[in-house]
């Protein structure tokens, strides 16, 4: 298989997993969820926030989850603070409402519902990959973060010390269409894992995907 065929197989894997995320979210929470964009990007790690349209000064909420095994890397779910509150209130179905007086940016319950969402998203993604490539991948416990996007990305890439270099990024924009919620899902396999994906793709991968 030549590079273009392999790239298109990888592209389809990315789309399938983004589609799976949208499906899981709508089944679990009874929401109308749409995969708005799915793309694969090569971009310098310090350009990722700008690339996703987040300004340097904006504080966002997110969860990040590392994965390891045959493939290693991290999955980030990034939301604006408003979207985070909105989705948390849907997931919590009215539980954990606090008076607005001394309310932190996001309450502990809200934070844990965001990390739970991150878990669901990460497993949708990893399952698709594992099933398509017949490999084992383990997902690590999620971490919650409310910070500048660049800080979240740096923290999630810390182990791979890739900062400054380019990253392969599976970028999906998931929209909850019956609420005003947008969720950016970034999957960043490290470069070594990316090559393993290329090596692993054979003709039959195309049928599986």
């Amino acid at each position, binding site marked *: 298989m*030549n590079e*273009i065929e392999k790239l298109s197989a990888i*592209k389809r894997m990315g789309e399938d997993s983004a589609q799976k995320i949208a499906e899981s979210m709508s089944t679990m929470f009874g929401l109308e969820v749409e995969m708005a964009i799915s793309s694969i990007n*090569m971009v*310098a790690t310090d350009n990722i926030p*700008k690339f996703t349209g987040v300004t340097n000064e904006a504080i966002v909420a997110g969860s990040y989850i590392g994965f390891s095994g045959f493939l290693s890397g991290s999955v980030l779910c990034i939301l604006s603070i408003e979207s985070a509150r909105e989705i948390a209130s849907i997931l919590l179905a009215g539980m954990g409402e606090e008076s607005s007086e001394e309310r932190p940016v996001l309450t502990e319950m809200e934070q844990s519902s965001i990390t739970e969402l991150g878990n669901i998203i990460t497993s949708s993604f990893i399952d698709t990959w594992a099933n398509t490539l017949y490999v084992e991948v383990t997902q690590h416990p999620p971490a919650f973060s409310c910070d500048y996007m660049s800080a979240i990305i740096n923290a999630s890439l810390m182990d791979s010390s890739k900062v400054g270099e380019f990253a392969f990024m599976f970028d999906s924009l998931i929209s909850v269409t019956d609420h005003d919620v947008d969720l950016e899902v970034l999957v960043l396999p490290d*470069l070594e894992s990316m*090559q393993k994906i290329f*090596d692993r793709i054979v003709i039959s991968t195309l049928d599986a995907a």
Partner: protein
Amino acid sequence: MNEVEKLGAIKHMGDIAATNIAGSMATMFGVEVEMAISSVNLIAVDSIPRLIGVADDEIVVGSFIYFEGFMSGSALCILTTQSAYEVAGILLEGMEEESVSDGTFTGMQQSALTEFTNIIASSFIDIWANTLNAEVTQHPPAFARDFMASIIDESLIDASKAGDFAFMFDSLLSVTGSDISLEVLVLPEMDSLQMVFDNITPRTIDNLQSQL
């Protein structure tokens, strides 16, 4: 060489081309132009406007060029209407008698804006020519003011590709100290992209290193 190394080389070529575009624009403008982002993307053609952050119903100004040879494909330059007026104003330095901003562009404004796309296409073509010894010819540029999706469709010679995925070089250039920004998109055709993969050798990497 493995796929990741080759893609890395292709990414570098895009970075160098985008930096060169910023350099040429700075010379033309006499202002500082910054390459804000340079990326390589795999994306469904109909998702491109959203990825760039252009709403489906937004009218933008663009110019595009088709190139062919060793590499075939199209180069586009997309601006908001406001940015397009400002850019044309800077380039024409008041040569235009009347300034309108009702969404129409005079012949001179249009040709100033299409001149950009020439620079963009040449920068990319040069880098491919220098590193891969490839010969590429570029066609005359065209001006368009339309929905972004329509401009992209028009720029792709093979319109049937609209539902397919594209390999896209995407750079965002911004003029320092102003709110002018330009989105530069280069969409090589898949067949010619495969030729690039086939022709990248360790020497190509050395060649690129010397140009960085």
